[in-house]
């Protein structure tokens, strides 16, 4: 289609020119679509991971898409100074006290799941450093993660999708998943003997993923950490009570703060930093970085942890991500979940209504 306006160029040259005018922007648009994954629906994206969580447990508007059932806590971290030689992060400076807003939870996407339905508990923390930087971490009460990669994690979620006929995961699919993923062996060995604890206060919480500490002289150390509880009165979970964890926490905090030691383990060369299924040998140097003091708890639907995305890649100067492939995937999927639930909180058009009724009923 030649330009209707008079032009000094011979019309014969126009078709090619018009084709170019069309082709260049089209190529740009296709390139963007490719990068955005719209041309490759099989690519694993954060959205597909979060969609699978919703497939497995339904949509619970306003709630996190995983670790949906939890409780907010607040307190502080008192640094011992023992980690300061390894990391310049202000949170580790000797005598430094850093306020913390945290959250205890159980894994799974159902905010009404019984506390005894899983043997795992989680602790998420946001340290607000005096210099304005933040350290966010999400830890689980198990020493190793079942899988090492986001792809395997997604396959595990798919295998765990309830069969519409029974409402339960298909045992054959789960068996096939574990057979195809021998790296899950260490986790399964732990899970075999693990019992749901009666209290958040008596559990240890592991970082699982590795991180890198940077010292003042620039030296880098691969690390993992765990929160080791001071409370050791571990008991079996009460039967016939679906909601004992929050009540236990409230009761304990009424008698005084709860304490955990932050134990940082330093890797030796060769210890795997990119594989959360493998524990490091027990003889590695461990540094007692200080004491986490939890002073109060608040319900998660109104407490200060509600609007915090505990993205473990939000780190202060002095702590960096390692080459662990789970970390970027956690960051990306948490961001997707955070956008979904904050959109629901904001009542944006096209989002589901925030589901508060059962929560209100469950509250005494």
């Amino acid at each position, binding site marked *: 289609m030649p330009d209707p306006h008079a032009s000094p160029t011979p019309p014969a040259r126009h078709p090619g020119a018009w084709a170019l005018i069309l082709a260049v922007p089209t190529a740009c648009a296709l390139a963007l679509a490719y*990068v955005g994954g719209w041309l490759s629906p099989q690519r694993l994206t954060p959205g597909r991971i979060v969609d699978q969580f919703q497939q497995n447990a339904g949509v619970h508007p306003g709630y996190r898409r995983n670790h949906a059932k939890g409780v907010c806590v607040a307190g502080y971290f008192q640094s011992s100074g023992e980690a300061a030689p390894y990391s310049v992060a202000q949170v580790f400076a000797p005598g430094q006290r850093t306020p913390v807003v945290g959250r205890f939870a159980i894994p799974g996407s159902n905010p009404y799941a019984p506390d005894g339905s899983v043997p795992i508990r989680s602790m998420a923390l946001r340290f607000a450093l005096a210099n304005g930087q933040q350290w966010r971490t999400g830890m689980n009460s198990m020493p190793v993660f079942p899988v090492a990669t986001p792809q395997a994690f997604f396959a595990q979620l798919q295998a765990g999708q309830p069969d519409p006929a029974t409402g339960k995961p298909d045992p054959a699919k789960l068996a096939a998943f574990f057979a195809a993923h021998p790296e899950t062996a260490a986790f399964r060995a732990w899970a075999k003997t693990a019992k749901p604890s009666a209290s958040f206060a008596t559990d240890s919480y592991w970082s699982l993923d590795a991180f890198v500490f940077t010292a003042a002289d620039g030296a880098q150390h691969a690390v993992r950490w765990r929160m080791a509880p001071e409370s050791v009165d571990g008991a079996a979970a009460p039967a016939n009570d679906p909601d004992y964890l929050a009540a236990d926490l409230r009761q304990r905090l009424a008698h005084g703060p709860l304490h955990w030691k932050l134990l940082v383990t330093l890797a030796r060369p060769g210890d795997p930093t990119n594989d959360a299924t493998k524990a490091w040998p027990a003889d590695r140097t461990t540094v007692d970085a200080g004491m986490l003091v939890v002073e109060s708890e608040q319900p998660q639907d109104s407490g200060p942890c509600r609007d915090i995305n505990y993205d473990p890649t939000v780190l202060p100067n002095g702590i960096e991500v390692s080459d662990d492939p789970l970390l970027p995937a956690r*960051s990306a999927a948490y961001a997707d979940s955070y956008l979904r639930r904050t959109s629901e909180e904001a009542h*944006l058009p096209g989002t589901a209504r925030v589901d508060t009724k059962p929560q209100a009923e469950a509250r005494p």
Partner: protein
Amino acid sequence: MKNTTGMFALPARILHWLMAAMILAMLFIGVGMVASVSERHEWLLRIHKPLGIAILLLAVVRLAVRLRHPPPPLPADLPMLQKLAAHASHWLLYALMIAMPLVGWAMLSAGGYPVMLGASLRLPAILPASATAFAIMRHLHSWLALLLFLTFLAHLAAALYHGLIRRDGVLASMVGGSRKS
């Protein structure tokens, strides 16, 4: 100060091509990082924030350059509708290259995130923490990015149209070199 050279001033041309590369890279980085679960997500995110602030600063410089050195007038025989489209799309591009970084910055502020441009360089929050404000800003960031990309495509097609069909010196006024082919 009226432009009589028929060309964009050299600083305007340098800023145009530098920012064209930065903004196009930024759109691809943004779209790529939110669609990725690999280590690309981390390093793209690390580039995205300081690059966005750099674009914001350069856009302000560019506005000043534009006020100091007005662009050459459009060809007198350009149809009115095309003139209007040219002016509207240019001001839309300016508005978006300033709005996008500000919305991104506001979005991180509202989400309660520290706005880190590097290991320890932190910008202050420009909005108080609010889940509602975060959600609105985050969606706005995506929609404005799409609008910016579509405006860029139209700008690109129009530039090629001027250079290949009309051959009226408009493309040359930004590319540089001889005015008319």
